[in-house]
């Protein structure tokens, strides 16, 4: 968008030689372009640089009045985090699981399907939306921090309200070893 000189010229009929009046306007287009580019850059970097925070609440460790809640075993799903970014899950107790333990992956096609399906099944079985699925997350020593965050994220994505991070037990480790995802 260059400036057009439409003032017309060369009409000096009087023969007088006049020095042509120079326009005092500067073409600001390029400058404005640059300014807006920089604005965009700073705007995006300031808002995106802030890290995200995932809140995690753990149960009190050493409370005196430990209450043992008994929950139906068909409502609990245990997820064991193993090595090589794999996990294993089952419903019920480790010595007599209600579903055979399954190895799965993280992500949309892996554990999320199982979580959503099981959450529906449990509500259908109990017939009460307040008695939904309870997920026990047991990270093994072979899992890394990314796995831990991923599984917590899956809980948020699949709208599982009740989940807990539990210490892994020896039978669970034996199960992971049997299926080859524990070193």
């Amino acid at each position, binding site marked *: 968008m260059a*400036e057009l000189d*439409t003032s017309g010229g060369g009409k000096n009929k009087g023969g007088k030689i006049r020095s042509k009046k120079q326009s005092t306007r500067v073409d600001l287009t390029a400058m*404005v372009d640059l300014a807006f580019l920089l604005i965009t850059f700073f*705007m995006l970097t300031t808002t995106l640089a802030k890290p995200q925070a*995932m809140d995690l609440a*753990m149960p009190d460790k050493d409370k005196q009045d430990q209450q043992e809640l008994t929950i139906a075993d068909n409502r609990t799903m245990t997820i064991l985090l193993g090595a090589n970014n794999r996990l294993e899950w089952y419903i019920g107790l480790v010595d007599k699981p209600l579903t055979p333990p399954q190895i799965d992956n993280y992500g949309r096609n892996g554990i999320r399907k199982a979580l959503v399906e099981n959450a529906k099944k449990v509500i259908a079985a109990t017939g009460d939306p307040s008695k939904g699925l309870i997920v026990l997350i047991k990270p093994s020593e*072979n899992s890394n921090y990314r796995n831990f*965050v991923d599984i917590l994220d899956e809980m948020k994505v699949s709208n599982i309200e009740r989940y807990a991070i539990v210490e892994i037990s020896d039978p669970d480790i034996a199960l992971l070893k049997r299926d080859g995802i524990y070193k």
Partner: protein
Amino acid sequence: MPRIKVARKSTAIDMTAMCDVAFLLLTFFILTATARQPEPLPVDTPASTVKFKLPDLDIATLTIGQKGKVFFGVPGQPIRKRTLELMGEKYQIQFTEEEKTRFSVIESFGVPIGNLKQIIMMKGDDRNKPGLQPGIPTDSVGLRPSELHDWIISARYATKELNNVDMRVSIKGDSREEYPSIKKILDILQDQNINKFSLITSLRTGEE
């Protein structure tokens, strides 16, 4: 009959006002942008879909990376100063006024308290060299709690004294970090009844 001449209008727009606005905004964003501090322990945070932004104030950050190295940082210079004073009382180390001032601008550090004076007197660039700082000890010695435990508790006292709010704790872990080292930190936090923490994650781009 004379022909009616349509006056030819100039196609140039006066951009002065637009330019003014653009530069005003630019100045604003440059001034509000916080310069990113170099981190002594670079970590690659795992991604998540959570869209909750981390608050700026009254939240301590524990950085975990490189096989269990732990770095600690609290925001706010007065809080840092007070934290150092409290730590000095606990470990019977005298810090001079200059050391306190220098410490108050250190964003995050990871050395045993015995070596803290050396780190304080270093220049910023030298201090942030990778591999220089070995991390804060997390093991308890006998009956004495670990240094990390003491740092956290001092920072909590300092935050409560100065700002009268409870300090929160956030954990910034490297995604390759193994779970036991994370567990160790969680246990240290739970020992002082901190049962709620924030895990710092980066935003997941695109659906996997």
